[in-house]
């Protein structure tokens, strides 16, 4: 269960980014999460809520986009989506695939920041 420490890193990153923008309020964090990242989405969502408590991020939303596993098929010479974590094969030709191109990501891609109304 390392999702909590990962959630804390995400909160920390968002706070730093908010600082750079003069303490703007962050309403959502957008995260790319690969199926091979070793992180469980639901556990991360629950941990995120905990990690936000008492911080500026409290009440913010974690929007997770899951990234499928893409591996290079040497037989087809094409990138292919690996459908099962339990079986690394090319869905087209059935050959085993070992060169993973995508699916390990754990990346904060964007923040939703609340715009402060300018003083009249």
């Amino acid at each position, binding site marked *: 269960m390392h999702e909590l420490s990962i959630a804390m890193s995400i909160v920390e990153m968002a706070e730093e980014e908010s600082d750079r923008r003069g303490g703007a309020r962050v309403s959502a964090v957008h995260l790319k999460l690969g199926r091979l990242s070793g992180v469980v989405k639901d556990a991360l969502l629950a941990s995120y809520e905990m990690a936000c408590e008492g911080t500026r991020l409290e009440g913010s939303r974690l929007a997770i986009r899951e990234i499928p596993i893409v591996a290079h098929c040497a037989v087809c010479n094409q990138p292919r989506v690996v459908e099962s974590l339990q079986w690394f094969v090319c869905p087209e030709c059935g050959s085993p695939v070992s060169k993973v191109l995508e699916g390990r990501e754990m990346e904060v891609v964007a*923040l939703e920041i609340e715009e402060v109304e300018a003083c009249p």
Partner: protein
Amino acid sequence: MNRLVEVRQNVLKQNDLVARELRQRFQNAGVFVVSLVSSPGSGKTAFLEKTLTLLRQNFRVAALVGDLATDNDAVRLKRAGAPVKQITTGTLCHLEAAMVSKALEGWDLQELDFLFIENVGNLVCPGSYDLGEDVRLVLLSVTEGEDKPLKYPTIFNTADVAIVTKMDLAHAVEFDAAAADENIRRVRPGMEILKVSSKTGVGMDEWLHFLSAAKAIRTAQQSVPSC
């Protein structure tokens, strides 16, 4: 009004940064680094003890061992006569690159040929953290069942070599070696699989041979001038 601001930052960038620095240090010093992951009780420490004992005859070796609490493993490993340092993680379920870096303070890496890093017994979390190692081993004991790789595909996929341990018990537990190999290669096609018994020494020659060959290849790759 909400505004979307692009960030693009790897959540583990701090760990990856430290791991990259470590990898560079290891390469500069010419030390080959092997990390070990497995579930608790799969025989990591016994395997490491045997490895250190045998390898010490021809090489300079050392080990770091991670555990939540106690230094029992370090005490055991010291019997092999090699320098060993315990990393106690407290409640953390895995090692991170910064812990490795800190544990290495005061050690002269130039004095080593091989460094082993035994991770906390856990088949989930260590998979996400690069430690700067050259080779990551995943251990699976014959008593755990042949389908373990299918249950924990991520850690098997992120490792480079699978070591099947406790082969001396294979017969007693009716271990199906072919099924285990097939499951390992389903989640990590082409993976090198070695079968050993730390108790009887079966398979250790092959393992040591693999290690020295891997180190030689790494050294040869390094000496190729890059443009």
